[in-house]
């Protein structure tokens, strides 16, 4: 494993920064939307989910990358699934032990990290053909890109839907109609369909700023 590149060469840093914008896993590669949206009604579960996915994807990438020369091609999908499933079980047990209430809120979606397409996508496309360190950076970058979108969506949904962030009240009580003000929460934001529409709008903003990404 003689690596001529320094650990943080420009090429390696690009692996880390590209997924945040121009090859974002959610808005550009269209991966991992499955479990992403259902947990974004509030900011806290969105952050926990983002961290969990980042941990699983970075470690999974490293493990598969270390094993890449010994995995027989025909059964690689099963091997990848087993590695991911083992990591997800670890994450699930840690969440249950330390943040039980969030783990209850996330319910089946922790388990669904296993079938999160980002994981399979990155393992298949990157870790199977790259060295461990690069794979680790790629995993971190993609996890962060995924988390970024999750946190943006969670931020707007909790702020507009409940008037709070991370459970702390942002919109003052006195603004509300019930207290003689003029403001009311938008109850629609908490419902599932608004998560999709919010992502649609994020894509719109991103693509109008970065015209290269426009599809025909």
């Amino acid at each position, binding site marked *: 494993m003689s690596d001529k590149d320094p650990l943080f060469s420009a090429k390696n840093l690009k692996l880390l920064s590209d997924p945040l914008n121009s090859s974002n896993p959610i*808005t550009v590669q*269209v*991966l*991992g*939307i*499955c*479990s*992403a*949206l*259902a947990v974004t009604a509030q900011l806290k579960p969105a952050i926990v989910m983002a961290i969990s996915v980042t941990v699983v994807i970075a470690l999974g990438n490293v493990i598969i990358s270390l094993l890449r020369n010994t995995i027989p091609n025909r059964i690689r*999908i*099963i091997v990848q*699934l*087993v590695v991911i*499933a*083992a990591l*997800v*079980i670890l994450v*699930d*047990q840690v969440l249950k032990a330390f943040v039980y209430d969030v783990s209850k809120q996330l*319910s*089946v979606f922790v*388990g*669904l990290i*296993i*079938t*999160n*397409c980002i994981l*399979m996508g990155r393992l298949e496309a990157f870790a199977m053909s790259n060295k461990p360190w690069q794979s680790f950076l790629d995993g971190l970058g993609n996890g962060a890109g995924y988390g970024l979108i999750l946190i943006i969506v969670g931020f707007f949904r909790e702020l507009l839907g409940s008037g709070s962030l991370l459970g702390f009240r942002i919109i003052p009580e006195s603004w509300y109609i019930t207290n003689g003000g003029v403001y009311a929460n938008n109850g629609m934001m908490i*419902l*599932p*369909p*608004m*998560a*999709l*529409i919010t*992502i*649609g*709008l994020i*894509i*719109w903003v*991103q*693509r*109008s700023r970065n*015209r290269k990404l*426009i*599809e*025909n």
Partner: protein
Amino acid sequence: MENLINIFVRSIFIENMIFAYFLGMCSYLAVSKSVKTATGLGIAVIFVLLVTLPVNYLLENYVLKEGALAWLGSSFAAVDLSFLSFIMFIAVIASIVQLVEMVVEKFAPALYNQLGIFLPLIAVNCAILGGSLFMQQKEFQNIGEATVYSLGSGVGWFLAIVGIAAIREKIQYSNVPKPLRGLGITFIVTGLMGIAFMGFMGIKL
């Protein structure tokens, strides 16, 4: 019987895999460009859900759940293997998908050609694993309820993907703002469909 119909209708319209839980979105977005392929994938999902969910139900209730091993003798009655459920479910799903693929290839080559690459990809479709995990959470009374639930979720997923495929075929003729074309408008249309499906909320049979 009433109970079964209730589960069926609920899982299609109210707890729709796509509009309420966003499960299977990856393939939903990637394969919904034409109605024909969407139909093929939809049928494959119904089929695989219908096979894997009852198997996972048996596994959950006779092996994994706390006290589920009691049939082996009283010394096993306290064993709780539920932390293994993720890995067991995904293993069952992956192997059944492989099995289904081989059986379909042997006995129904026409269907096999139609489904093409979708069959192996279904192993990593969130809707399949999601179905099993929801089954675990809902604690169905018997295998009949679990089977009806799997059929209902499959049909709900099928309806959603065929619907969006039909809309996307028509949307090509409309003047969508450029940055919104393709992915963006699909998300927003799915959101609007979800709002429409919310009209079914509160149905009780």
